[in-house]
């Protein structure tokens, strides 16, 4: 099962059928293998990756969905990945994520920054700062 593109239109990743938009740049990782493969690829590139940690029933996560879509359309040199914490709890533990939503900014496998909570401006500013 390879990585799939997500519509990011709903805060859930119940099944592949819930994701269908071909123009979304937000990649949803549903399994540990998907995440590991993505991480392996990412480490080879000098490209900023924003990881969105979310769950199905998190209100503020939902409010950030259109924001993330907007940012992913605007910053096409940045990769966006979505991880549902209920699907991949191990990844959450690995990065010490507790508050949702949280956004991790990484390059070459290294964590550069973190945004905790639905803070649109802070996220945008940090993307601008780290994308070059």
């Amino acid at each position: 099962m390879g990585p799939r593109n997500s519509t990011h239109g709903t805060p859930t990743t119940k099944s592949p059928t819930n994701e269908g938009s071909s123009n979304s740049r937000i990649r949803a990782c549903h399994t540990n293998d998907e995440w590991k493969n993505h991480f392996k690829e990412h480490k080879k590139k000098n490209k900023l990756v924003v990881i969105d940690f979310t769950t199905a029933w998190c209100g503020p996560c939902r409010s950030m969905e259109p924001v993330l879509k907007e940012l992913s359309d605007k910053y096409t040199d940045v990769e966006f990945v979505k991880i549902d914490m209920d699907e991949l709890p191990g990844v959450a533990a690995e990065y010490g994520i507790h508050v949702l939503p949280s956004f991790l900014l990484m390059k070459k496998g290294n964590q550069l920054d973190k945004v905790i909570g639905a803070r649109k401006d802070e996220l945008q500013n940090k993307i601008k700062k780290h994308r070059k």
Partner: protein
Amino acid sequence: MTVQASASSSSFTSFRIPSFAVRTTRSPQRSVILAQVEPSEKSVEIMRKFSEQYARRSGTYFCVDKGVTSVVIKGLADHKDQLGAPLCPCRHYDDKAAEAGQGFWNCPCVPMRERKECHCMLFLTPDNDFAGQEQAITLEEIRESTANI
């Protein structure tokens, strides 16, 4: 954290959950399956009423985007179904059952009770940019705004 949780007392007594109602052993695999099940209508209604009452009691307001409110109410209902307690759905826990038993993040959580801080955006103080003007939400509104989830 433990000290704070046990020392604080909730003013919303009707939502205290007896400890025997909290399941203490659940496999991670089961958590994954249950997390994707629609919460029961009964729990959604309980949490809807609780949210309205607690907003009025605490002088807080729902988010201007009721979709946010609806998702959180359903998340609380989902945890009530799964764990026996309305554990905050806007956090990640290594052990949900243990957290529900401990009580710190059961809604209304300790930061909300003590400082009116709800990072889930369910209860917003009037000075919050996202605060609307309502302290009421209907079951219909919840259904409509979460229909595609």
